[in-house]
């Protein structure tokens, strides 16, 4: 029996795991399979600086090619794994090659949710998940071009901000009553709606897309209520679906993500999973989470690597996330689901810098910080400690952030 560790998936979690395996002192063979033609790269810039053409691929790739050769990591870019044979402990590639594993890591990430309304297959309708998507979208970047963004989540709004900066005519259609409704309080949603409008982006909430108009290329988006939004191109950002098919087909436990324990182990002791594709326990919140964030992919990559070499570095952290739009840096700590009170520090109605603290019966469970690094940095500790906070002290800006928890 060999010692090979095989990693399926070539994204953030896979690259981290490969690096951490070597850092943990693993000297056996490591093989990574990724179905994209590129070595692992960072996705956040795809809707930010890379989309804006401010940086090139050399600055989004996670590691240079030399990293893999220097560390004796065999890479199979552009190669898809189509089957896991658990009995034989091997994986099969799309063209039928088999590779044995002693331990296997699934870091298959997620893919975009597609919109299934009439006309959805027309040219000019894009999603945003990988480099190829960005290139297609950029081919339409022309001053005055009309872009309709379907979905007012982070990615849709980031695309809108970049397109506006490039002089395009941008409309965002959101089905819910407010943007980013899934994750933030109305205070934050309304703040972002205001800023986008100030920047010249049209935000239309409560609009469910019923179809796309056009011959072969999209010319308008149909709201289904008699309203047409003319478009030269469309970007759809309505969420993601975890890539769990391989795990399902080989009989691993999958429930809204590949089920893993705090050491990233699946229901098969020799198979691990990390990143967007997992459902993992979180001790701070006391329930399972499936997260879509760089921090989660990095930390689970580290934990899985440790576990594969017999170390235990359980993953139990406060989630965090960021989003860049215009001159706004949003940093989110924790998960606000189930909060009983949202306390504001700063002035979201007029300014461009504030924080919202989400309390659940006096305990802080999450913070959204817009251009507020102190609140962000401090709240990482406060949420981890499950600090109880006095709303009056949070709101009082004469009290320093470091002293909010005292008194």
């Amino acid at each position, binding site marked *: 029996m060999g010692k090979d560790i095989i990693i399926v998936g070539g994204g953030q979690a896979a690259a981290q795991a490969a690096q951490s395996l070597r850092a943990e002192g693993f000297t056996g063979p490591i093989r990574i399979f990724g179905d994209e033609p590129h070595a692992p790269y960072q996705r*956040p810039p795809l809707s930010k600086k890379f989309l804006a053409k401010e940086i090139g691929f050399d600055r989004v790739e996670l590691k240079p090619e030399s990293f893999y050769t220097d*560390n004796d990591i065999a890479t199979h870019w552009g190669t898809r794994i189509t089957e896991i044979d658990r009995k034989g402990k091997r994986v099969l590639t799309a063209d039928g090659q088999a590779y044995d594993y002693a331990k296997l890591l699934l870091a298959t990430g997620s893919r975009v949710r597609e919109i299934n309304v009439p006309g959805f297959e027309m040219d000019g309708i894009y999603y945003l998940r990988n480099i190829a998507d960005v290139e297609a979208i950029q081919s339409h970047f022309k001053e005055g071009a009309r872009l309709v963004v379907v979905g007012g989540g982070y990615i849709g709004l980031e695309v809108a901000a970049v397109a506006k900066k490039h002089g395009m005519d941008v409309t965002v259609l959101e089905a819910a009553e407010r943007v980013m409704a899934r994750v933030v309080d109305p205070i934050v949603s309304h703040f972002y709606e205001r800023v986008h409008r100030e920047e010249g982006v049209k935000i239309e909430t409560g609009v469910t897309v019923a179809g796309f108009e056009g011959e072969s290329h999209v010319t308008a988006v149909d709201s289904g209520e008699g309203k047409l939004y003319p478009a030269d191109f469309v970007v759809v950002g309505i969420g993601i679906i975890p890539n769990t098919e391989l795990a399902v087909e080989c009989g691993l436990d999958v429930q809204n993500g590949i089920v893993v324990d705090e050491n990233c182990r699946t229901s098969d002791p020799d198979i691990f999973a990390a990143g967007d594709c997992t459902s993992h326990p979180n001790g701070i919140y006391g329930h399972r989470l499936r997260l879509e964030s760089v921090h989660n992919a990095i930390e689970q990559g580290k934990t899985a690597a440790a576990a594969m070499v017999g170390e235990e570095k359980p993953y139990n952290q406060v989630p965090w996330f960021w989003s860049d739009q215009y001159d706004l840096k949003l940093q989110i700590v924790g998960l606000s689901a189930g909060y009983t009170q949202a306390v504001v520090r700063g002035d979201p109605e007029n300014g461009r810098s504030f924080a919202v603290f989400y309390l659940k019966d006096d305990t802080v469970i999450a913070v959204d910080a817009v251009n507020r690094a102190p609140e962000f940095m401090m709240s990482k500790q406060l949420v981890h400690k499950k600090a109880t906070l006095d709303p009056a002290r949070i709101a009082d800006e004469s009290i320093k952030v470091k002293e909010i928890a005292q008194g």
Partner: protein
Amino acid sequence: MAKITYVEHNGTEHTVDVANGLTVMEGAIKNSIPGIDADCGGACACATCMVYVPKEWQAKMPEKEDMEETMLDFAEASNEDSRLSCQLPVTDELDGLRITMPESQH
């Protein structure tokens, strides 16, 4: 281009050439030098790229913007020499720069 020496907490030194336009953080990542995590990839959002830069070199670098300043203020193990290396663009002027890295970025 600048020759930069990155010194790990345990004293291990790495001297590499870094192209203009990249950041001091990217110089470490691209050369697989351990000690800088850079979780956010340079978005000035994570503070896991903190390094110590001697004062005489800081004079050749852009001043800290508010975001960097406040992130550092709260980062573990930061002191007055601390900078976020993703906010430090490499120029010819930084040739010979020597920076040290903290024991851990978390």
